[in-house]
């Protein structure tokens, strides 16, 4: 078994994941991802996932070994912010050609590493493996090892060819690379009893900075964020933290769990989205630090900050309440974020017309049920036509989703708000939740909706395409029923 497939099996065998542990041995080997359906698949590959997870390390040169597609079509397209180096936004690729396919690309890769180091002198080079060099057998581990020895600099192989699986697997493979080659290789200049790691936070739109001031105020130091706004050395010495928070569901659970095993760093799973979740996360951080020897007075200060910030956040949301009361929201997004924001939306007076549970675990669903009550609409998968029908038949006034489905709402002249990774607004922490409510209000109250819904001078009201889409003939309606949606009211 190659080292890559061994790593993948290891990742599939994640004991930290409750869902995984409920499976039989045989099922577990198959992995956690559904078999993709050719001609009906969407979503990124493992390489995409690995890049998302590691590119936020700002001072590293991220070198993609592959044909132009992998980097040329995708570089500088993610919204992770940096407070320092901008090297992570520079696109590096070997851009391999037919010659490399025939003769092998290892020498080419080695030369590329040399050029990067000579020109940019980064503290480390990360080399990402992609499908084509994986197929022709380029041994990037060996090349990285040779280059590291030759140039006296960490050169880290990331085994992430796209065809081994989806984005989520790529996140974990990226984590494995950090565990094998980076974490524990350097020592911090000093440590404190208040040092934590934040794992799985990418500082999209600067969201880490919505949280950091509160930690600063409490005297809690982010020793290392993996990987938002991180520097290479911070990740390398992250093994000296006293406690860790794992953000964003299960994407990097392997990193959190193995750091607990190897270095005795306890972790909890938390979220910065939503007022209650934010407070719980602060409490958990304080609790774990106190368990590890921090002064127990930390908890009192934490509670004081929580009380103050919650009051400010609710006060920030209150003015929107009269305008938003009774408005219905359709939340279509990956797992955790859905239920994290539900409480804030409800506090602003809004109702949840439905939420997606495609990526959510059973516990997530229980939480949704607890928050939204028994008549919660949990949507497994929605066809674009159904999304539109839900919006249009007044089941929802606004849709919150990722960029892919935005045009379903916009073309239907319905308000829409981006809550996925390419977005430009930061919604984390207390201020972030107020910002989210403000953005929803901005979208809903914009005067354009009334105008853009008017028929053209040559159309009559009720004869536009929207009306037609709603009055499907029986055949069409049957077809829509057959292809989905699968709406499930929780019993």
């Amino acid at each position: 078994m190659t080292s890559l497939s061994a790593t993948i099996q290891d990742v599939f065998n994640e004991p930290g994941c409750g869902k995984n542990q409920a499976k039989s041995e045989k099922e577990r080997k198959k992995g956690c991802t559904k078999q993709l359906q050719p001609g009906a698949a969407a979503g990124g590959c493992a390489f995409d996932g690995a890049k998302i997870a590691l590119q936020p390390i700002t001072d590293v040169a991220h070198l993609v070994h592959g044909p132009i597609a992998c980097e040329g079509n995708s570089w500088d397209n993610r919204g992770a912010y940096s407070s320092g180096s901008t090297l992570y936004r520079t696109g590096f690729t070997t851009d391999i050609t037919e010659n490399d396919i025939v003769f092998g690309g290892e020498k080419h890769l080695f030369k590329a590493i040399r050029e990067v180091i000579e020109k940019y002198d980064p503290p480390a080079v990360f080399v990402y493996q992609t499908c084509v060099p994986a197929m022709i057998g380029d041994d990037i581990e060996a090349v990285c090892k040779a280059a590291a020895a030759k140039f006296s600099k960490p050169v880290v192989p990331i085994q992430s060819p796209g065809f081994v699986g989806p984005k989520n697997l790529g996140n974990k493979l990226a984590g494995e690379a950090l565990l094998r080659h980076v974490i524990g290789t350097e020592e911090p200049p000093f440590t404190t009893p208040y040092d934590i790691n934040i794992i799985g936070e990418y500082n999209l739109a600067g969201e880490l900075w919505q949280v950091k001031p509160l930690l600063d105020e409490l005297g809690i130091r982010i020793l290392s964020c993996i990987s938002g706004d991180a520097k290479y050395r911070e990740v390398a010495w992250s093994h000296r933290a006293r406690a860790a928070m794992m953000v964003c569901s299960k994407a990097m659970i392997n990193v959190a769990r193995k750091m607990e095993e190897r270095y005795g760093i306890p972790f909890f799973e938390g979220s910065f989205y939503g007022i209650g979740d934010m407070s719980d996360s602060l409490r958990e951080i304080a609790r774990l630090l106190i368990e590890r020897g921090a002064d127990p007075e930390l908890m009192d200060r934490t509670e004081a900050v929580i009380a103050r910030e919650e009051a400010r956040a609710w006060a920030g949301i209150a003015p929107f309440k009269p305008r938003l009361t009774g408005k219905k929201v359709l939340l279509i997004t990956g797992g955790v974020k859905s239920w994290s924001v539900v409480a804030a939306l409800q506090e602003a007076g809004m109702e949840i017309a439905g939420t997606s549970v495609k990526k959510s675990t059973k516990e997530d669903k229980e939480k949704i049920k607890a928050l939204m009550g028994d008549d919660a609409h949990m949507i497994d998968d929605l066809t674009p036509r159904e999304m539109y029908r839900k919006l249009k038949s007044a089941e929802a006034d606004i849709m919150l989703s990722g960029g892919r489905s935005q045009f379903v709402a916009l073309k239907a002249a319905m308000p829409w708000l981006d809550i996925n990774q390419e977005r430009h607004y930061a919604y984390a922490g207390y201020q972030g939740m107020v910002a989210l409510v403000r953005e929803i209000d901005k979208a809903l109250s914009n005067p354009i909706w009334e105008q853009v819904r008017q028929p053209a001078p040559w159309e009559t009201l009720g004869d536009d395409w929207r009306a037609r889409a709603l009055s499907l003939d029986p055949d069409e309606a049957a077809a829509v029923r057959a292809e989905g949606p699968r709406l499930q009211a929780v019993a």
Partner: protein
Amino acid sequence: MAERIRSSKACTVNPLKMSQPIGGALAFMGLRGCMPMLHGSQGCTSFGLVLFVRHFREAIPLQTTAMSEVATVLGGLENVEQAIVNIATRAKPEIIGICSTGVTETKGDDVDGFLKLIRERHPELDDIALVYVSTPDFKDAFQDGWAKCVTRIVEELVDAPAPGSVRDPARINVLAGCHLTPGDIDALRDLFEAFGLDPLFVPDLAGSLDGHIPNDFTPTTLGGAGVEEIRAMGSAAWTIAIGRQMHGAALSLEARTGVPFRLFDRLTGLAANDALVRFLMDITGRPAPRKVRRERGQLVDAMLDGHFQIGGKRVAIGAEPDLLLAIGSFLHEMGAEIAAAVTTTDSPILADVPAERVLIGDLEDLEAGAGDCDLLITHSHGRQAAARLHLPFFRMGLPMFDRLGAGHLVSVGYRGSRDLIFAIANLLMEHGHSADPESWREWPAAQADHQPGGSLQ
């Protein structure tokens, strides 16, 4: 004129180039009722899709055969078959356009062979056109993928005219290169229609990606050239090909149908558009419409007004060959100097670019050459270089993800050329430096030491 040089670096830094398969896929997006699909791992499609969504701000139909590691090694017949059947059932397209990728080309999948087998096994798919084009990622660039795809569309779909059939003198075929925006295509359609012609654009992104509100939900492309219309291209009187990249497709179409073609390497600038209008007058026997005459006058006036700003400026351009030629030549005609020219792939047209040399390279090369320039022109990825060099930055090409209206930027025709002058000259004026008491205290260090956006010439 220009010398062609290929960068000898092992590491491409800040790529200018994008890959062939998504160039091919975008060409398929100019066909009506089409579902383009990449035969490769799902990431190949996902990256292309995100890129186009960010550029056009439209829903993008693009599917994948979702090749796993095992499927890649064993061969992709089953994946291609399943994908076609799934798309046919779910999306009900008129045509499925398939582009290969680096993964499946390295394996050596014989997709033409697959399609024969699939045709035999699935007679129910007979009324769906299937066009396959080989576009390995590890060769050539976006523009080549587009060009190959259009050639394949012609070869696969166009009917040879029946003997003795008559050509319609009012109908023309227009083979449009990938440097034309939906807005460019609309502008040219207006021009041709003003001469009483009925043009069929292949591909026609104006029908599919111009941002219109569709009549209903359709998972395929919303508009563009229809398969039936393409089949009938042999009954047109003329073919107009725009951009040297369309030369191959034009030759192919002529060989198949006997329809003569005229190739226009570019349609930006006065002389280039005079050539087109003269040609249209010739083939229609009509005088130039009054609107066209007025627009020509306005372009001439814009050139007179704009040469103060543009003349003498040193410009750095990074673009695919045909766009580089169009913009570079026009600015050169306005008196600018193309001081740095970087492109993505080889093309005979590069010899005509009015620069000393054209480098097939990346944005790092362009940045290195643009240090003493007054203006940087490339796609949105140039924003980091422009910021570092403190240069005014004019975005052209694809992707353009940090500006609205990328699809409606018009740079062809008299009017498009006129507006391009205004846009560029305005940008230069905005970044111009005004004098202060110290400006003339010392002589400039060297004649070549130009300040960005330097004083009026």
